[in-house]
C-alpha cells in the first residue's frame, strides 16, 4: 500500500457455498486486507465459551482469546504499528504467536512470519530486506525441541522500516533456489478462500471436533489447515504437550470428541513406533502433508491404528491444492474445490490469477495465470486425479520444512575461507566443501551455524583442499563420484 490511508487492495470474495452451512463462509461483501472485518467475521466469530485451543495449562475460550488479541493489539499500536504497517513475528508456535498474528491483522497490518529456528543472521537479513517496522520476538533461546506449543513471553522492538508496499496480509519466506529466500505474499481474501476450500473437503475435522496439531503454525499447513481453519470452523486445537508418540496419543485421549491428527510423515513414524498403543475410539484420522508417504508406511499405520491415513499436497504460495483424506486413491489426489491443476511438460501447474511472489518476476515460476509448482506429476484426463512424482528443482523436505539446496550451497560458498561447495541430498543434506589454505572446517562450521537455520544445515560436511571437477573446470555433482572421492577411508577433515 502506498499510504496507511489508502484502500488499494480490496480483494473480492465471491459468494461461496459450502456443504456445511453451519461453518460455511458466505461473505458477500468485499474483504479488505487492510481492515479487521475478516478477522472478526471469519476467524474470531463464534460463541464466547467455545474452546479454541486446549493447552496443557487449560482451555482457552473464544472470549479469552478475544481479550488476549485486544491486549496485543493495544501493545502493537502503542509501539507504533498502524494500518498498512509491517510487523514481523519471530515467535515459535505459541499463544503469543496466535494473539499477535490476529492482533496484527485486526490492526490491518502486514504480518511477516519468521520461523523461530532461523538464525539471528537470517532474521536480520529478512527484517532489512522487507523493511519491517515492528518485530515481535522472544528474549529466550530456541526452547525445548520436543515442545509443539511453546510457553513464551513476547517482546516488541521497533525498527526504522517502512509501511507495506503490497496488499498482502501475510508474507512468508521460502527457501530460495537462487540464493536468498523468495518472498511469498498472500492476501486476506486468498487466505479466506483457502479456509473456504477446507470447509468443502470431505474428511477435514468438523465443528465441535478436535485437531491434534503437530506442524508449525508458522508454515502454511499448520497455519491455514490448522490454526485458521480450526478458528473458523469451531474445531478445538490441541497441541500435544510433547512431540513423542505417547505425547500425541495422550492428546487424542485428553478429550471425548473425535480427533484428527494433522502432521507430516515424520509424525507417522512417531506414532508407528509406539509399541503397544491404547485403543482410542476418538481417533478419527491422521492427515499429513509435506511429502509423499511410502505405501509400506501407510499400510503399517492403518494396521496399527485402524483409521484412514490421509494425504495432502500444497504449497506456501496458495495452500492446499489436492487431497486424499480417505487414502482411497494413493498416491493420487483429488484437486481441492475450486483448484485447477494441469500438467505441462511433466510439471504440474496450478491456476493462480496473480503471482504470489513479491519483487520477483520469473516466468519459470508464474506466467499467464499459472503457477509452476516445480513438482513433476501427471493429471489423469478421465478422473482429474493428480499424482505428484517429486521435485523438479533442488528443493527438498526436511521434516516437512522446505529447504532449497541452492540456498544452502550459496550460503556455504559465500562464507570466508570457502572456495567452492557442492550440496547434495541423499536422505539427508550433505556438503562437500573446498577450503582456502590455512582455513579449518571447524571455523567454517561456526560461521555457518550463525548464517543458516539448523534444519537447513548439512548433517554431514566433507572438507577438502580441492573438489573433483570436470575437464572444463565445473564442479562434479554426481553423488556417486563424490561419495567415492570422500569415502571414509580417504576422508580427512570430515565432521
Amino acid at each position, binding site marked *: 500500500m502506498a499510504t496507511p490511508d489508502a484502500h488499494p487492495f480490496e480483494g473480492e470474495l465471491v459468494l461461496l457455498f459450502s456443504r456445511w452451512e453451519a461453518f460455511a463462509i458466505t461473505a458477500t461483501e468485499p474483504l479488505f486486507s487492510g481492515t479487521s472485518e475478516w478477522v472478526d467475521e471469519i476467524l474470531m466469530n463464534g460463541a464466547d465459551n467455545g474452546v479454541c485451543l486446549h493447552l496443557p495449562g487449560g482451555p482457552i475460550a473464544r472470549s479469552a482469546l478475544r481479550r488476549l488479541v485486544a491486549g496485543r493489539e493495544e501493545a502493537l499500536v502503542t509501539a507504533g504499528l498502524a494500518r498498512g504497517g509491517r510487523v514481523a513475528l519471530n515467535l515459535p508456535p505459541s499463544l503469543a504467536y496466535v494473539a499477535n498474528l490476529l492482533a496484527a491483522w485486526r490492526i490491518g497490518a502486514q504480518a511477516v512470519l519468521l520461523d523461530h*529456528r532461523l538464525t539471528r543472521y537470517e532474521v536480520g537479513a529478512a527484517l532489512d530486506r522487507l523493511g519491517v517496522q515492528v518485530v515481535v520476538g522472544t528474549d529466550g533461546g*530456541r526452547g525445548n525441541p*520436543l515442545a509443539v506449543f511453546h510457553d513464551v513471553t513476547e517482546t516488541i522492538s521497533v525498527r526504522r522500516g517502512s509501511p507495506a508496499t503490497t496488499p498482502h496480509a501475510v508474507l512468508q519466506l521460502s527457501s530460495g533456489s537462487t540464493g536468498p529466500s523468495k518472498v511469498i505474499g498472500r492476501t486476506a481474501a486468498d487466505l479466506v478462500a483457502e479456509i473456504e476450500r477446507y470447509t468443502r473437503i470431505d474428511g477435514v475435522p468438523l465443528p465441535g471436533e478436535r485437531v491434534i496439531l503437530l506442524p508449525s503454525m508458522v508454515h502454511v499447513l499448520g497455519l491455514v489447515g490448522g490454526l485458521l481453519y480450526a478458528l473458523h470452523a469451531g474445531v478445538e486445537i490441541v497441541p500435544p504437550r510433547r512431540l*513423542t508418540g505417547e505425547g500425541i496419543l495422550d492428546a487424542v485421549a485428553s478429550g471425548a470428541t473425535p480427533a484428527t491428527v494433522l502432521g507430516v510423515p515424520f509424525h507417522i513414524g512417531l506414532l508407528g*513406533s509406539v509399541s503397544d498403543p491404547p485403543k482410542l475410539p476418538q481417533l478419527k484420522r491422521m492427515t499429513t502433508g509435506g511429502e509423499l508417504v511410502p505405501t509400506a508406511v501407510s499400510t503399517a499405520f492403518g494396521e496399527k491404528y485402524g483409521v484412514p491415513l490421509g494425504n495432502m499436497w500444497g504449497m506456501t504460495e496458495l495452500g492446499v491444492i489436492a487431497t486424499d483424506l480417505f487414502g482411497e486413491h494413493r498416491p493420487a489426489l483429488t484437486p481441492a474445490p475450486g483448484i485447477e491443476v494441469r500438467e505441462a511438460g511433466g510439471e504440474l501447474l496450478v491456476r493462480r490469477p496473480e503471482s504470489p511472489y513479491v519483487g520477483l518476476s520469473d516466468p519459470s515460476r508464474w506466467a499467464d495465470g499459472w503457477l509452476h509448482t516445480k513438482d513433476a506429476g501427471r493429471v489423469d484426463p478421465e478422473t482429474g486425479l493428480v499424482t505428484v512424482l517429486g521435485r523438479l528443482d533442488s528443493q527438498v523436505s526436511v521434516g516437512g520444512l522446505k529447504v532449497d539446496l541452492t540456498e544452502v550451497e550459496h550460503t556455504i560458498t559465500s562464507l570466508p575461507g570457502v572456495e567452492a561447495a557442492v550440496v547434495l541430498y541423499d536422505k*539427508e543434506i550433505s556438503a562437500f566443501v573446498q577450503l582456502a589454505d590455512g582455513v579449518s572446517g571447524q571455523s567454517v562450521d561456526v560461521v555457518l551455524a550463525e548464517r543458516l537455520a539448523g534444519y537447513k544445515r548439512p*548433517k554431514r560436511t566433507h572438507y577438502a583442499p580441492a573438489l573433483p571437477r570436470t575437464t572444463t573446470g565445473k564442479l562434479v555433482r554426481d553423488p556417486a563420484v563424490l561419495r567415492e572421492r570422500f569415502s571414509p577411508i580417504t576422508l580427512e577433515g570430515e*565432521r
Partner: protein
Amino acid sequence: MIAALDGRPVAEIGGQIDSMQLAWLVHQVEQRYGVEIELDDGQYARMSTVDGAVEVLREAIPAVPR
C-alpha cells in the same frame, strides 16, 4: 536409533542432529527405557551433534550404556 528414522545404515548418519532427529531420538530412548526424559534448554542445546546427544542422554538416564 537415528538411523531407524529413515532406514539408513548407521555409518551413513552425519554428525549433526536437527530438531526432528532429536525428537525422534528422545522418543526412541523413552520407548526403550520406559522413562520420560525431561531436559532443560541448556541440555537440549548440547544435543546438536550425535556425540553431544549421547553424552546428555547418559547423564539423564543411568541405564543408557556407556
